[in-house]
């Protein structure tokens, strides 16, 4: 089963789901946020997982995407949906490029610290200058419904379908990137920058490209998060905690893999639900939302530590190992072939 066929299959199943089940909770509270977070994690993974540029400011870029879309929708009425998405992503990409410039001089912690500068500055700016929130009185803005060709994406299923379409498309493109020569260049500068230079990789162009593409994806994720999921936009939804959450997603899901973003996001979305059910069952009297919040912190933190120690390549790698053990080895199959990371030869045989 090649990656492309897998993607088509999952997409078909996901798109067909509303035909079978239409209860709004599933879409509103689980699937739509899952899609938005996955996209954000995908963007961060390209930057931090593949290219090795640590960023702790991803939620700031989600905010930029959301606010861009908000302003575009309100200030340029009649702008087509595709244009809104592209432009929001584009604005985020441009700003991401600027904040990515320090990566040309800084590495590791120092780079991480500079991304925090982006995080705090953007949060402050969006809060401080009323222009961004169209001078609304309260800090919270409600996001107008997205629309295309006269159809308003308002129902839970409609918003879910929109998110699905956007995420599937961008994931396919990201996947193609990861398999291309440029994708290899990203990993090269992560693993050995000097060697990459010597073989002719332009580190400057590659790093900036990583920031550009990553920020684009995260910006669009911000649009989905605010417009398709929450339907409100507020700076407090895009805090350092959210940035950490996205980082946790790729650590748990699996760095430097496409599927890792999705596995991690699914985990992150389902964890609070599972924990609150567990808590309600075990300690019905005292398990309130405060306790849930704190327990969530403890569990998340412990999992991060656990994964870093035991399986640094996340659930994606764990799943792969179990998958390989479960399947009988067919004669003729290469023992080292990986189901979702086909080596170059396979991607060339008959695939796009």
């Amino acid at each position, binding site marked *: 089963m090649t990656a492309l066929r897998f993607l088509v299959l999952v997409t078909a199943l996901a798109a067909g789901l509303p035909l079978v089940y239409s209860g709004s909770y599933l879409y509103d509270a689980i699937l739509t946020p899952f899609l938005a977070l996955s996209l954000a994690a995908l963007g961060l993974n390209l930057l931090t997982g593949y290219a090795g540029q*640590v960023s702790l400011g991803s939620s700031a870029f989600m905010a930029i995407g959301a606010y861009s879309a908000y302003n575009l929708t309100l200030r340029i009425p009649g702008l087509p949906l595709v244009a809104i998405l592209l432009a929001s992503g584009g604005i985020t990409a441009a700003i991401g490029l600027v904040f990515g410039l*320090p990566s040309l*001089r*800084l590495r*590791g*912690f*120092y780079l*991480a*610290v*500079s991304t*925090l*500068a982006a995080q*705090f*500055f953007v*949060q*402050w700016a969006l*809060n*401080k*200058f009323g222009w961004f929130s169209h001078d609304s009185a309260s800090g919270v803005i409600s996001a107008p419904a997205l629309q295309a060709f006269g159809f308003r994406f308002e129902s839970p299923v409609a918003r879910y379908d929109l998110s699905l379409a956007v995420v599937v498309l961008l994931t396919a493109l990201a996947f193609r990137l990861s398999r291309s020569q440029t994708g290899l260049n990203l990993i090269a500068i992560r693993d050995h920058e*000097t060697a990459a230079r010597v073989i002719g990789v332009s580190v400057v162009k590659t790093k900036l490209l990583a920031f550009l593409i990553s920020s684009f994806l995260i910006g669009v994720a911000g649009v989905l998060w605010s417009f398709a999921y929450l339907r409100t936009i507020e700076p407090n939804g895009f805090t*350092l905690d959210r940035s*950490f959450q996205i*980082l*946790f997603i790729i*650590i748990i899901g699996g760095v430097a893999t496409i599927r890792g973003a999705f596995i991690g996001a699914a985990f992150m979305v389902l964890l609070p639900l599972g924990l609150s059910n567990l808590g309600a069952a075990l300690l019905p009297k005292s398990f309130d939302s*405060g*306790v849930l919040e*704190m*327990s*969530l*912190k*403890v*569990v*998340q*933190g*412990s*999992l*991060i*530590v656990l994964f*870093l*120690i035991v399986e*640094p390549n996340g659930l994606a790698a764990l799943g792969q190992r179990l998958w390989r053990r479960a399947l009988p080895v067919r004669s003729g199959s290469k023992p080292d072939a990986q189901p979702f990371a086909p080596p170059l030869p396979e991607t060339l045989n008959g695939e796009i």
Partner: protein
Amino acid sequence: MMEELRFLIEVLVGGLLSGVMYSLVAIGFVLIYKTSGVLNFAQGSMILFAALTVVSLLERGVPMALAIAVSLVGMIVIGMAIERTVLRPLVNRTPITLFMATLGVSYVIEGAAQLLWGAQVHGLDLGIDDSPLEIQGVLVSSFDLVAAAIAATMVAVLSAFFRLTRTGLAFRAVADDPFAALAVGLRLPAIWATVWATSGIVALVAGLLWGARLGVQFSLSMVVLKALPVLVLGGFDSVAGAIVGGLAIGAAEKLSEVYLGPLVGGGIESWFAYAVALAFLLIRPTGLFGRKPVERV
């Protein structure tokens, strides 16, 4: 004119005193980084835990000295537990992996602290008077002065310890080259345990001082975010750098808040320190005092 100058000095002094407190937090980081190469993001949560423990015990009628002692023991235990269960298994991994592990640890400690003691805000009275003093016509908060004095003393003691004692020398040896240190017979686990215990003590002092100043609540763990620009400026492995960096950041922050803030609507303390650190990094990518990493090809 004199009024303005006096005001400037007041702001500057306030900033410097603030800066000493930043230095104290930063030194907790430097300690760990110097000896194990780990940037311990969990330092902030440890500060919170220490302060929360003391305050909660005080509120239950436990005498101050005992509360501090219990908290101290707790800190030491936590520190050693982190070293043992998290850092030792990760000993060969990249620095950024270790950093992320400490990020995870910080979440665990924050969550545990508030599960244990609750999430409300507590006031902390250390018995330090907070009336303003007037020195040469300049108003200075006496609390700030005392806090700065305490912090400065700790900083001095730690600096001396590193430079002048055998154990301090051992710490530096381990930081420089763990294998060589092993080869000359230094016992790494004992040293690391001591380092983490010391860091725990620093966290306790910082927690008490900051807690008295800001109130003991969750945002105390965010103090660590103030320490990062200090570390960037001063280098992650330099005590002197932490001092100079702390003073610089403290002063710059206060001055910008008063003089630049009103120009852009205020509230710039949330990011100004980072902007300073970033600007600085672009000129000197390894900080004021930090050592340049040598890459062998």
